[in-house]
């Protein structure tokens, strides 16, 4: 194998579970068996799939090789919404031991359930990337992701516990307390947003934080878009090892893929997920190395398995050999979205939510534009709203009240504070066809 252009690993090349090393023929046989069993199960238990299979005239017997997955229907976020709240549940309610959820376009989350076996699997999948990133049982790891419906906090927590390391469940927020925990418990691994890592760097540069007061060795960053440049900066300035991983609650949560010690992309845990990369317009597969929309089938989940879930995340796949010994497909960083979803401070936001917020203030939604920026380390959003004649008043108090109402409405729909600017009518750009409402000034694409 030619691996001359791959840098020597900074951490030990390690494998948490032996099945991570399955060779492709064995892996594909396993995937095919699991897919056939999944089709059998979902055809019986989930009306959405039962109807879709009937429409396509397909049954479990038709799944003979891994390529047969292309005969199966896609599942989209709107399918999940239309079957809200629990239409995709494939087990009796009594077998569900936990619910998580992700934010959606309508202000209501998409719920996902987990059986005890699902939680066990999920813990191992998180342990896989944590272990590959250097976490061991004698370490202490702090989780600064929110513990709640969001899968980040609990997912990472379980993975750390599975490895046997000490976990500090700091949860999100309260940066002063985060720091006390990091220092006083001599935390070696931190699970946090890239913004928080940059915040620590600022503290060190400004002299308010002494690097020697920290025992940090490594970080597992996530829940916000970030870039290879940011990794470089965090590794250089903080002197830590930074690992990337990927997941989404519809498919499982964190742990769907993660980097190995060679960091040549994120290994998809293909024994439990089938990954496809498609052209979002034609829905045809794209070649390895080309960017497309990632599609996942969660083979092993009991409570909420999905077939060919369209993530809307754009990335490329590679199946070139990796010196780590795994044969699984690797995905590049998420390069964007095939829909208009924005991730603001780790929260999923759709422009349609802004529209909904505006509709709550006035019966007809005015034209609006969303501008996203990251002036320092935190995302800031400005929503420009064209005043309609009915909204205009000669009274400043009245206009300010309308602006504040819009702000409050946006906050109640998205949970985020956004700056609202009122602008004269017909001053914002109009686009033909699919309207482009978002200008994202954050420089996040990797160079």
């Amino acid at each position: 194998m030619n691996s001359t252009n791959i840098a020597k690993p900074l951490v030990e090349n390690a494998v948490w579970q032996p099945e991570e090393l399955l060779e492709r023929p064995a892996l594909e046989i396993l995937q095919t068996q699991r897919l056939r069993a999944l089709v059998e199960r979902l055809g019986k238990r989930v009306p959405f799939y039962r109807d879709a299979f009937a429409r396509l005239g397909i049954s479990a017997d038709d799944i003979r090789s891994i390529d047969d997955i292309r005969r199966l229907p896609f599942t989209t976020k709107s399918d999940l919404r239309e079957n809200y709240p629990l239409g995709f549940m494939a087990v009796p309610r009594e077998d569900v031991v936990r619910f998580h959820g992700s934010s959606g376009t309508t202000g209501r989350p998409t719920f996902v359930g987990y059986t005890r076996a699902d939680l066990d699997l999920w813990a191992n999948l998180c342990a896989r990337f944590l272990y590959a990133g250097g976490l061991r049982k004698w370490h202490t790891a702090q989780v600064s992701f929110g513990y709640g419906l969001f899968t980040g906090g609990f997912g990472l927590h379980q993975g750390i516990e599975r490895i046997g390391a000490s976990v500090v469940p700091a949860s999100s927020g309260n940066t002063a307390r985060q720091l006390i925990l990091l220092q006083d418990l001599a935390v070696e691994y931190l699970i946090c947003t890239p913004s928080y890592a940059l915040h620590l760097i600022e503290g060190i540069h400004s002299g308010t934080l002494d690097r020697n007061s920290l025992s940090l060795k490594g970080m597992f960053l996530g829940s916000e878009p970030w870039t290879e440049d940011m990794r470089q900066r965090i590794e250089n300035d903080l002197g830590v090892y930074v690992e990337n991983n990927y997941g989404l609650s519809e498919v499982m949560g964190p742990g769907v893929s993660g980097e190995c010690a060679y960091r040549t992309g994120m290994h998809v845990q293909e024994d439990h997920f089938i990954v496809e990369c498609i052209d979002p317009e034609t829905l045809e597969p794209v070649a390895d190395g080309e960017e497309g929309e990632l599609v996942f089938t969660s083979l092993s989940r009991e409570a909420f398995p999905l077939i060919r879930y369209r993530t809307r995340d754009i990335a490329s796949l590679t199946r070139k050999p990796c010196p780590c010994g795994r044969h699984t497909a690797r995905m590049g960083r998420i390069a964007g979205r095939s829909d208009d979803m924005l991730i603001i401070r780790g929260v999923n936001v759709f422009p349609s939510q802004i529209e909904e917020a505006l509709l709550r203030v006035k019966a007809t939604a005015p034209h609006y534009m969303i501008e996203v920026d990251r002036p320092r380390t935190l995302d800031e959003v400005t929503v420009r709203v064209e005043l309609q004649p009915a909204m205009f008043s000669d009274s400043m108090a009245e206009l300010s009240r309308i602006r504040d109402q819009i702000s409050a409405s946006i906050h109640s729909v998205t949970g985020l504070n956004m700056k609202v600017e009122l602008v004269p009518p017909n001053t914002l750009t109009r686009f033909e066809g699919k309207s482009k409402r978002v200008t994202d000034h954050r420089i996040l694409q990797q160079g």
Partner: protein
Amino acid sequence: MKINQIAVFLQNKPGHLSGICRTLCDQGINIVTLSLADTQQFGILRLIVKDWERAARSLEAAGYLVQIREVVATEVDDRPGGMAEVLDIVSAAGVNIEYVYAFTFQKHNRAVLVFRFDNADKAIEAIQAAGRNVLTPVDLFTEE
């Protein structure tokens, strides 16, 4: 008797205010007085002009957001305390002022106050009961 005031939504951007004045100038409309209320991001320009209907039409045609609002104009002596006397009258009547602006009236060496009250009729009644003049458009726009 009330006066029609034109309010125009103003973006705090170079050229926005001059564009409005230019539009009125092109129509041969003279601005009797104006007042500007603004925040960092936007403002409200309030204008008193004689031919308010034509002014509003031409501003709207030029794409501005316009609102016509009846306001109350009253004369005061252009001397210290002139304004305070009127304010005392309306406050005694329990009327709230939403905004007020003033200009001096060339012909009588007097000042004119333009008010928006929360209750205009009650304010007018109180001002007139105190023996003061509430200006009509004729008073305001008749040239000497």
